[in-house]
C-alpha cells in the first residue's frame, strides 16, 4: 500500500527531526552533565596551581600546560607535512594508480585505533630513537595519528577550488607554485582549517596514544624531552585509580571548555578571513 504523498512527507519530517533531536539531546546531556559536575570545582586556583597527592587535591596546572603544548607540537609537525602532501597529490601529480594507492592508504590509516599509533610511537620514538616518554615523542606520535585526516580534508578542500581559477592564474603567466600560493590555498583555507581543527580536537582529547608516548609525569616540562601529562590523561588516571572524582570532573569540564574555545577561535578567524576577501 502506498501512502499519499502528504503522509510520506510528514513521516519524513518526523523521522529526520527525531534523529536530529536525539543527537542533539545526547550531546547536550553529556555536556551539561560534565559541566554540572565539574564546574563547581573549577576556579583560577584549580587552573593555575600544581596538583597535590597525585591529584587528590590541588589544581591541574601542569596538565593544562601539557594539553596546550602537546597538540600545538603535534599540529605544528602535521600541518606542513599534511598540507604539503595534499598540495602535491592534487596539484603536482596526475591521477594514477600510485595516487589511488596513496589515497586508499591514508583512508586506512585514518581508521586505525589511536592505541596502535601509541604502540608504534612507544616502540619507535620512545624506545628505538631513545626519546623516552617525552613531549617530543608524544607530539610526533600525535602528528602521525592526525596526518591522514589532515591530508584528506586538505585534499578535498583543494579539489573544491574551481578549476577555472587555476586556468585563469596560469593564463596570466603564473607558475604552478604561484598559482598554489595565490589562488588555490587561500580559497581552500576554510576547508584546510576545518581539518586542522579536527586534528587539534583529536590531539586534545587523545589518551591512549599519549600515555604510551608522552608518559604521565605531573611535573611541569622543562624541555621537549620531558614527560608531560595532558588533561585527558589526568582525567583518565584520576577516574581509573579512583583518586578524586570531583577533580576528574573538574578536569573534564576544563577539557570541554578548551575544545569549545579552540573551535570558536578557529571559526572567528576563518570568518574574518572570508569577510576580508569578499567585502
Amino acid at each position, binding site marked *: 500500500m502506498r501512502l499519499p504523498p502528504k503522509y510520506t512527507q510528514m513521516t519524513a519530517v518526523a523521522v529526520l527531526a527525531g534523529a536530529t533531536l536525539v543527537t542533539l539531546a545526547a550531546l547536550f546531556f553529556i555536556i551539561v552533565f560534565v559541566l554540572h559536575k565539574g564546574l563547581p570545582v573549577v576556579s583560577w586556583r584549580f587552573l593555575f596551581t600544581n596538583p597535590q597527592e597525585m591529584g587528590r587535591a590541588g589544581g591541574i596546572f601542569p596538565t593544562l600546560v601539557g594539553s596546550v603544548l602537546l597538540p600545538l607540537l603535534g599540529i605544528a609537525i602535521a600541518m606542513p607535512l599534511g598540507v604539503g602532501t595534499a598540495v602535491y597529490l592534487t596539484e603536482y601529480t596526475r591521477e594514477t594508480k600510485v595516487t589511488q594507492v596513496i589515497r586508499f592508504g591514508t583512508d586506512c590509516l585514518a581508521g586505525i585505533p589511536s592505541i596502535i599509533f601509541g604502540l608504534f610511537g612507544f616502540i619507535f620514538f620512545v624506545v628505538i630513537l631513545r626519546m623516552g616518554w617525552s613531549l617530543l615523542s608524544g607530539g610526533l606520535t600525535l602528528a602521525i595519528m592526525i596526518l591522514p585526516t589532515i591530508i584528506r580534508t586538505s585534499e578535498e578542500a583543494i579539489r573544491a577550488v574551481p578549476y577555472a*581559477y587555476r*586556468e*585563469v592564474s596560469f593564463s596570466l*603567466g603564473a607558475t604552478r607554485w604561484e598559482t598554489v600560493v595565490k589562488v588555490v590555498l587561500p580559497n581552500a583555507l576554510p576547508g584546510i582549517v576545518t581539518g586542522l581543527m579536527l586534528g587539534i580536537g583529536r590531539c586534545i582529547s587523545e589518551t591512549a596514544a599519549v600515555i604510551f608516548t608522552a608518559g604521565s609525569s605531573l611535573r611541569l616540562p622543562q624541555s621537549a624531552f620531558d614527560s608531560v601529562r595532558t588533561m585527558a590523561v589526568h582525567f583518565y588516571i584520576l577516574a581509573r585509580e579512583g583518586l578524586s572524582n570531583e577533580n576528574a570532573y573538574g578536569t573534564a569540564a576544563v577539557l570541554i571548555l578548551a575544545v569549545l574555545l579552540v573551535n570558536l577561535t578557529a571559526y572567528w578567524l576563518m570568518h574574518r578571513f572570508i569577510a576580508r576577501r569578499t567585502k
Partner: protein
Amino acid sequence: MSDAKIIVRRLSVFFGPVQSLRWVSLEVPRNRILGIIGPSGSGKTTFLRTLNRLNDLTPSTHIEGEVLLDGEDIYHPNYDVVRLRKRVGMVFALPVPLPMSIYDNVAYGPRLSGVRARERLDELVERSLKAAFLWDEAKDRLHTSALRLSGGQQQRLCLARTLAMEPEVILLDEPCSGLDPISTAKIEEALTALKTRYTIILVTNNTKQAARVADDAAFFLMGELIEFGPTGQIFTVPRDPRTNDYVTGRFG
C-alpha cells in the same frame, strides 16, 4: 620576416585517441583582429588554447605541427611557457574573476611579473580598466570584491586583467557568449580600439560579431580549417560552399 605575428603549420591536436584539430595551417597577421567562426565542437577553442599552451594542462594531450610566435617555435622543449603566457593573454568564455578585489584582479599579472611599486601598479590598473571601458564604473570600488560586479562588468574586468600584463597577443574565447547587447557592444568597442597595439584572435559563435569587428576570418568545421581570408570576402564571396552555408545561417 613576414608580417605574421603567429604562424601555424600543420597543427594537429589529440586528446587521447581523439583528434580535435586536423592539420591546420594559418598565418595570423599582426595588429588586426582575426575572427574564428564555426559551430560548437569544430576545434575553435582547442585552436585558441594551443596558442598559449593552455592545453598542456589537460592530461593526455598530444600535439603535432608547429606554432611560431614571432618566428619562434612555442612548443620547443626549451621554450619558457610562463613567458609565453605573459605575451599571449587570454579571456575565457565565462568571466572568472578571482575571489579578490577588482584592483588585485587587475594587478595579478603585473605582480607576477615582479611589479611592486604602488604608483606603477595604480597606473597599470587605471590604464587597463580604462582600455576595457570599465574604469568609470569601477573607479570608486576598486578595493571591493570583483565577485560583486555584474556579468558584463566581470568580463570587462577579465579583459582589463589580461591587458594589464601588457601582452602582445590577446586570445578571446567567445567573450560575449553570456553578455547582453550593451555589454557586448562595449567589449567590441574596446577590441576595435585595442587592435592598433595588439594582435587579437576572437573566437565567436556569433557570426554577426565576427563580421562587425574582425578584419580577417577563419572558418573551422570538425577540426579542420575550411577557409581563411579577409572578413569581407568570407562573408560575401566565400570560396567554399560549406563556409557559405554557415555564414548565411543554413546550419550551425
